Every structure is written in structure tokens, then in C-alpha cells.
């Protein structure tokens, strides 16, 4: 005698904690509609997860929090040190100025970063409720090391060396609003003033 129940009910009845639909990557075996048929995407990096934070609703008196868009591209076939110069170039610029500078730069990474910025701008307007696509500035722009593969590089006379095929990641954070004014460079006078202030802040501890 076989008491045939629906699969999930049987599973929950037998072992409440075990869910066979979770064990199977694809649901070819158990023909139930409630099972997720798609495999999970590749492990999301920390930068991608930054887009998911949800702030509590703002109170009526607070100034409007500007929209932040995090975007990145992984495993770009370029060196992280060379990409850093481009990232440093566009840090703090408005997105239009950054796109203009990258368009007339001859480096290979400039084309890649331009595509990333355009994608991020598109995402901002579509998903993140940004009103004007020019009203964005680049708050952060970083590079990171990607995966390196080692290969043999053949030299003359039977010699060889090991070379590394380098890749990098590029991360960008766009914030809505006009770009902040650049802070004036720290002069020696400012440093001296700060030093004197530090000396003046010293007090006697554990005394009356």
C-alpha cells in the first residue's frame, strides 16, 4: 500500500528540515512548480551587493539623500597598475567630463572604463530613479587585481621565463548631484598650523 502525497508535503511530513528541492540544482527529477528551476548566478562580489542596501525612509525635514549607483566590471584583460592611472584621472569629475577625457585618451583601459560608465549611467536612469543623466559625478573609482594565470614565455637558446597574464577589476560609484569642488592642496603653512594646534591640544592627564 502506498499513500501517495504531493512531493513537498511528503518531504515536509517525513523530515521537516530537509527540503529535497533545495538539494537538486535543476528540478528535472521532481516535477513540482514551486521549485526554482534556475541555478544561482555566480557569487556576487561585495561591490555588487552594495547596490542592495536599503535605507529607512527619510523624515520630512531631512535633506534629500543623493542616489548612489555602484557598478563594476570584472576580469578586464589589462594591468591594475595601468588602469589605476585612468581611475585616478576621473576621480571626482562629473560623468560628462570623465567621458570626454576618456574618449580622447589613447590607453586600452580608457575604452573599457568608458563602456562601464555608460552602462552605469544607463542603470542609474532606468533603475535608480535618477532624473538627469548628466547630474551624476564619480564619487569613487577603484581598480583591483583580477585572476592571474602563469604561462611560459620562450626566450632564445632554449631559455624560458614564466610570465603572468594579468587581469583587473574596475569599480565605480556614481552619486547624483553636481561634483563637489576640488579641495585646495595642503600647503606647508596648513601643515605647520595643524602641528602647532596639536601641540596646543596637549593636556596633563590624571591630574587635578
Amino acid at each position: 500500500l502506498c499513500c501517495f502525497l504531493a512531493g513537498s508535503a511528503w518531504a515536509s511530513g517525513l523530515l521537516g528540515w530537509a527540503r529535497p528541492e533545495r538539494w537538486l540544482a535543476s528540478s528535472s527529477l521532481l516535477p513540482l512548480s514551486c521549485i526554482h528551476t534556475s541555478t544561482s548566478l555566480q557569487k556576487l562580489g561585495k561591490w555588487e551587493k552594495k547596490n542592495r542596501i536599503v535605507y529607512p525612509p527619510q523624515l520630512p525635514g531631512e535633506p534629500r539623500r543623493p542616489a548612489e549607483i555602484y557598478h563594476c566590471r570584472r576580469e578586464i584583460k589589462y594591468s591594475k597598475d595601468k588602469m589605476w592611472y585612468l581611475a585616478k584621472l576621473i576621480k571626482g569629475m562629473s560623468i560628462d567630463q570623465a567621458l570626454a577625457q576618456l574618449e580622447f585618451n589613447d590607453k586600452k583601459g580608457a575604452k573599457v572604463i568608458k563602456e562601464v560608465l555608460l552602462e552605469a549611467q544607463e542603470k542609474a536612469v532606468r533603475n535608480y530613479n535618477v532624473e538627469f543623466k548628466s547630474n551624476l559625478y564619480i564619487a569613487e573609482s577603484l581598480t583591483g587585481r583580477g585572476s592571474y594565470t602563469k604561462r611560459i614565455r620562450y626566450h632564445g637558446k632554449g631559455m624560458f621565463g614564466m610570465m603572468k597574464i594579468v587581469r583587473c577589476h574596475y569599480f565605480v560609484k556614481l552619486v547624483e548631484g553636481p561634483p563637489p569642488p576640488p579641495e585646495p592642496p595642503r600647503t606647508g603653512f596648513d601643515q605647520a598650523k595643524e602641528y602647532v594646534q596639536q601641540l596646543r591640544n596637549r593636556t596633563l592627564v590624571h591630574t587635578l
Partner: protein
Amino acid sequence: ALIVVFSPLPRLRSLLQRCWGRLDRGLLPGVSGGQNPAWGPALAVQAPAFSPQPADDSSEAWPSLLGSILWMAAPKSRRTIEVNRCRRRNPNKLIKVKRNIDVCPECGNLKQKHILCSYCYAKVKAETRLIRKEIRKKEGGPFNVPTVETVVLYDGEKPTEKDEGKRIIERARKRPSWFVQN
């Protein structure tokens, strides 16, 4: 980084030994005394005490190899990351911000002040390519260039009295706005 690996082939090793031996003999004329009268003034560098023996094999060649490279410039200590950063992030190595970017009045794309707009130039290039295809069809082969001028006429245009003896190339489209008719 280059890792020079000495392969175990005996032929290669003896070749290397002979090369280094030749180098040593050439670099240390003072040590070998009167054996090389053809060489000019002696080198003003510290020469190692021992001289390489061309007859010996195996172990003798390697100490002289190490001795002869004592006088080459080499870094004394590892450059720290702070020193490396100071060099790599020096303002003369950072990319300069370009201040000669403008907007093209014709198409609205960005262009550099002293360079033609890339978008407009691409349009002109495409049209020129099609005109040249027409010319090739008319000529039908190499070395058939006529000795008269060429005039390009678009849809609905007739050759004027000025274009009497000239070669006419027809293009089956409307005249582009940037191609002004004389």
C-alpha cells in the same frame, strides 16, 4: 620576471662556458699579462685575483663568471612600496587632464580643437568610398585614369556648362548637406 634556466644539454653548457671564457679573456687583459698584446689600455676596474684557465672545464668556469659580474651595477636593497608609490604617483606620471575638447557644431559629438570631428570624418569617408567604387566601375581596370577632371552628380542634378569636358560620376542618392555643389 626572467628566470634564466640552464638546460641540462651539455652542448649548451660548454657553449656558454666558452662564451664566458672569451668574455673574461677580453675583459681582463691585465691579468693575462702579455698574452693579448693587441688590446689597448688596461681596464681601470677591480680585477679578481685569480685568472680563468682556458684548459680547465667544469668548476673553474663558474667562479670566474661570478667574479666578472662583480663590477656590474646592481640594486643594493629592495625598493620599498613607499618609495615605489612616490615614483609611480608623482604628478609627472599621472595622466594630465585635457583642456582642448570641444563640441562639434555640425553633429554635436565631442572633438579635439585641432583635429577633425571623428563622426563627421567617418561619414565623409564612407561617402568617398562609395564614390571611388563608382569610379572603379567606370574605369574598369588599372591605369585607365582619364586626363580630365571628375565631377560627382547626385539625384536630379544635370551637368552645367562649366562641366563640359569633365568625367561625370553618378551617385544614386540625395546630395549630402556637407558636399557643396560648385
